[in-house]
């Protein structure tokens, strides 16, 4: 009551209250400004390496990609001192190996995730989940050495492209499991119950309701996992050395890839090779970028929206 009346009377003298409020808000404004500057600075610092890498790759490798032979020819018969040739052998190898890796990892990963989210109870599920955690933490070089130890040392096989795929599979499965798990958990339980209440069995509910509802998310996760696997180099160096010719047989000989092409050319410090390093780098960045775009495109144009 009293405050109301004092307010009424003191409404006219504007200086006192405005000074009061102005003092407080200016202190807040300073803090706000400081926080804003710090955040922008952090953002810009984080941006520097990204822009720098992209800039160098485009600047130094862009020229290579504009040449049509880059996309149509291999390096067959071209010595490191000579210019010319292309990267089609490496692009093909990267795409084939990534594709085969996905073909093995996606069913295993997605089914594991379905088990963990929809069926997993008790000990077994906890164990599986724990193993996936451990797999996630395995460095790629260790996965490669493991496959090498089993494939070459124990079984006495040759180093083959398929062995590379197996090592990459070990790296891809946990990312697929984790991302799919997240997506399945996002499907509201009410939808499962609605389906059960219609007399639809559990497996059919999963196939026809749960998976379609989370489909775009699962695909996005798979594509992002695939993008990561494409750039993996350690397994390739150990299990899949470079060759300059086109090779498409997973079970015979060597298969070149973009990372090994980069690694190989990097070792030969003459100009044509340096150009190839940057050209191959930019190509790899582009492939990964395209996969990311595809992932985002699919998730944006999915039918489900909350």
């Amino acid at each position, binding site marked *: 009551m009293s405050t109301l009346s004092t307010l009424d009377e003191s409404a006219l003298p504007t200086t006192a209250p405005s000074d009061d409020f102005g003092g407080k808000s200016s202190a807040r404004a300073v803090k706000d400004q400081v926080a804003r500057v710090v955040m922008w600075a952090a953002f810009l610092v984080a941006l520097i390496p990204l822009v720098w890498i992209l800039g160098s790759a485009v600047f130094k490798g862009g020229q290579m990609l504009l040449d049509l032979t880059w996309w149509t020819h291999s390096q067959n018969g071209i010595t490191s001192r000579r210019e010319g040739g292309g990267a089609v052998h490496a692009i093909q190898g990267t795409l084939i190996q990534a594709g085969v890796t996905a073909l093995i990892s996606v069913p295993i990963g997605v089914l594991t995730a379905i088990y963990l989210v929809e069926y997993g*109870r008790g000990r077994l599920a906890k164990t599986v989940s724990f193993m996936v955690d451990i797999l996630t933490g395995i460095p790629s070089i260790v996965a490669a050495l493991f496959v090498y130890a089993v494939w070459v040392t124990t079984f006495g096989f040759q180093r083959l492209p398929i062995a590379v795929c197996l090592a990459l599979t070990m790296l891809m499965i946990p990312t697929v499991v984790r991302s799919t798990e997240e997506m399945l958990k996002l499907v*509201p339980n*009410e*939808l*499962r*119950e*609605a*389906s*059960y*209440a*219609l*007399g*639809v*069995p559990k497996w*059919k*509910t999963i196939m*026809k*309701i749960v998976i*379609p*509802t989370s*489909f775009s998310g699962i695909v996005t996760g798979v594509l992002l996992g695939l993008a990561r696997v494409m750039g993996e180099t350690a397994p390739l160096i150990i299990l899949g050395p470079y060759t300059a010719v086109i090779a498409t047989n997973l079970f015979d000989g060597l298969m070149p890839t973009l990372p090994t092409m980069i690694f190989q050319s990097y070792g030969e410090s003459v100009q044509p090779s340096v150009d190839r390093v940057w050209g191959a780098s930019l190509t790899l960045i582009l492939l990964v970028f395209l996969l990311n775009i595809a992932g985002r495109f699919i998730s944006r144009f999915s*039918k*489900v*929206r909350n």
Partner: protein
Amino acid sequence: MAKRIDVKDLDIYYGDFKAVEGVSLTVEPRSVTAFIGPSGCGKSTVLRTLNRMHEVIPGGRVDGTVALDDQDLYAPSMDPVAVRRTVGMVFQRPNPFPTMSIRDNVAAGLKLNGVKNKKQLDEVVEKSLKGANLWNEVKDRLDKPGAGLSGGQQQRLCIARAIAVDPQVLLMDEPCSALDPISTLAIEDLINELKSKYTVVIVTHNMQQAARVSDQTAFFNLKATGQPGRLVEVDDTQKIFSNPTEKATEDYISGRFG
């Protein structure tokens, strides 16, 4: 078509927690029974045992019998999936399938159970949507997503979806609690119509609604805080609202209840 439900000495558990104790009641075919009672007394829990949805929750189990026309739903030979085809359910929050069109939502139960005949599906869709009083509002946009309807329309869509599989009993858990008064009235009218074909059990917090739509009312309450819920009294709705036997019922419906 409609079937009679007999519940006898039903105890319901969530793991070790006994949520509801000693429920016995009978629901006559082609009648509406309302479950009322304070929050947490186990109305939803009892309702979900009538189509074996309770056991979907990990640790959920029951003691006692629930019979549908003398057929024990909890007999070992009984397939819970088949039970749910006979006893349909509508939930508190409308939950149409987000990936499906209006048409597919209604046809979902049949489609997912293997019916492919397009003509038959179209007939069922039209009949069910008419049965749920939604046909006129959506007949021109059957291929639009079901999630694009208003809340009240979505709830009627869910009712259409439930009656499309031709159940004999329809369970509804607070079907109007998320709806405005007009949609609520529409659904109450609908329940009145459904009564001529189905046995309906409805949970509601709205006394007037219970009084308006039901023939029989069951009042549930907790024995005491921390104790399992129990059925206090079940009788003709008229009797419950005018002259209940138990004092607790009278206190509750007259609002004198903590």
